[in-house]
């Protein structure tokens, strides 16, 4: 018995220090695995960069600002797609952020307890619906409603706002933005709710003890304390919206043009790749689509890096704290 005990003891001792040989292999394998995602990311970027060479040489930086998209004459400019991606994402986030944070506040602070779990679950379920289903709903329900009711109404009541001028098409930036809002709102709700619920009870008590109303505790203590998580949710949602392909492609209208009106049909970076890649003929056409992929890749990576940066800065402020 004492022998087994001592054997155990040695085993434990050895476990602490990496043994040369097999342990080194293990060590380097793990390190390799950890670096794999980085390698994939860089590889992806390099591949996209290489494969878009023809397009980059032909159009230079003007590719990003040119509006012509003419496969027949070989003129390719990405501006309508870039514009469409930014505009639809903007609409989606502008709607989803307040809606999501509001819902999160409601679920974390105000809703009766029996309501919190089921509503929270339903919101999460929104993220589980396949995006093609959202697309179908967009085509058959949202777009007709926008065209017949919402867009004419907006046009009448906000006629001074350029965003709401022009003929109501139904499909277009607004429809895509609304669909995106529905699709990304669960990410805002999820992270915000988690962050708000994590605000310690003793901090709320401190606020109550100073004569705060429930509303003041929420607005001035709980939400500000949870701000890093809330921003995290919003940025995550933004990243999602930028790259969303299927639902947007079905409802954006697929028109490679720029319009200041939200009612107009448009196009996005992701949609044009999805729609045209299989039919693209000619090296320059394919190369241009790949460059669009490169642009989308760069934007999403930058947004994610920004969100990391912001989150870590807030986290550091909290920790310095």
């Amino acid at each position, binding site marked *: 018995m004492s022998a087994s005990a001592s054997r155990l003891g040695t085993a434990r001792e050895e476990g602490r220090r990496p043994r040369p040989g097999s342990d080194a292999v293990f060590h380097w394998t793990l390190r390799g695995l950890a670096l794999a995602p980085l390698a994939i990311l860089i590889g992806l970027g390099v591949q996209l960069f290489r494969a878009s060479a023809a397009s980059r040489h032909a159009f230079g930086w003007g590719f990003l600002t040119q509006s012509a998209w003419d496969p027949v004459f070989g003129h390719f400019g990405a501006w309508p797609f870039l514009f469409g991606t930014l505009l639809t994402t903007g609409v989606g986030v502008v709607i989803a952020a307040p809606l999501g944070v509001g819902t999160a506040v409601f679920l974390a602070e105000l809703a009766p307890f029996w309501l919190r779990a089921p509503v929270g679950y339903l919101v999460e379920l929104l993220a589980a619906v396949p995006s093609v289903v959202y697309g179908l709903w967009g085509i058959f329900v949202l777009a007709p409603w926008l065209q017949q009711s919402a867009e004419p109404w907006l046009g009448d009541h906000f006629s001074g706002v350029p965003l709401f001028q022009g003929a109501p098409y139904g499909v277009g930036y607004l429809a895509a933005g609304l669909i995106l809002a529905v699709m990304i709102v669960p990410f805002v709700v999820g992270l915000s709710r988690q962050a708000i619920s994590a605000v310690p009870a003793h901090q709320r008590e*401190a606020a*109550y003890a100073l004569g705060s109303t429930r509303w003041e505790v929420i607005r001035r203590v709980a939400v500000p304390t949870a701000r890093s998580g809330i921003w995290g949710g919003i940025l995550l949602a933004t990243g999602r919206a930028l790259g969303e392909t299927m639902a947007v492609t079905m409802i954006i209208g697929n028109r490679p043009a720029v319009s200041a009106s939200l009612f107009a049909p448009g196009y996005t970076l992701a949609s044009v790749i999805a729609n045209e890649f299989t039919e693209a003929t000619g090296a320059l056409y394919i190369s241009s689509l790949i460059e669009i992929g490169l642009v989308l890749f760069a934007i999403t990576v930058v947004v994610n890096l920004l969100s990391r940066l912001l989150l870590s800065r807030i986290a550091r402020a909290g920790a*310095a704290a």
Partner: protein
Amino acid sequence: MLGNLHSTAAPLTASATTSASVPGVVETRHLDFFYGNHQVLFDVSLRVVQHEILALIGPSGCGKSTFLRTLNRMNDLVPSARWQGEVLIDGQDIYAPGCDVMALRRKVGMVFQRSNPFPFSIEENVAYGVKINHLARDRQHRAEIVERSLRAAGLWEEVKDRLRHPALALSGGQQQRLCIARALAVEPEILLMDEPASALDPIATARIEELAIELKQRYTIVIVTHNLQQAARISDRTSFFLMGKLMETGATQTLFTKPVRKETEDYITGRFG
């Protein structure tokens, strides 16, 4: 029966019974308190006199915190809380319908066992109550209140050059004094302190104790403590709670040297608790 016990044991209480509406006076009458069906306080009748420090002592779980939290209605936040009896602050029944709970909590400030600054700057922490209660005329006035409160809490010299820094970067003792400053900024009459020094080292504890004695000039203080030496050092009177009952209240000197009740004697001599 318990109700009159404490008045015979405490000379100060006897003098206090004469005037019911002196500012800064807290009085409970036959207070019972329940969490759901679990009764935590039994028929507690107690009076706190203006500008005194009353220490609440007793074994863990005997209801000291609960009692303290009935005085500013913090227990309202517990859904299962129920109570009977009266709590009078300045002669007003704070559980009477129509009582302004927010105004009550401003008047009866609280310092918690765990220091709980907001994750904001030092300045914003102190200014919080001033802002929500609209106590400052303008920014200038607010800055004055912040300074005055930090001075009163003995923290000004240490933080005056870094008011914009995060409060959570302060040491534990500084954080607790910041919480005191934050409570003072809304100009309370009464300060409730629930083991304010239990998480602090001896030096920080001594500072809090000195501070309590200083603050007594202007505020009425009820302090819960597990540290009997602390109660002896700073309080004028002491109340001993046991299993939700107020066993005895007396001048601190008397209570520690000649307790009336056997249970009190057992507790202060360390025979249980």
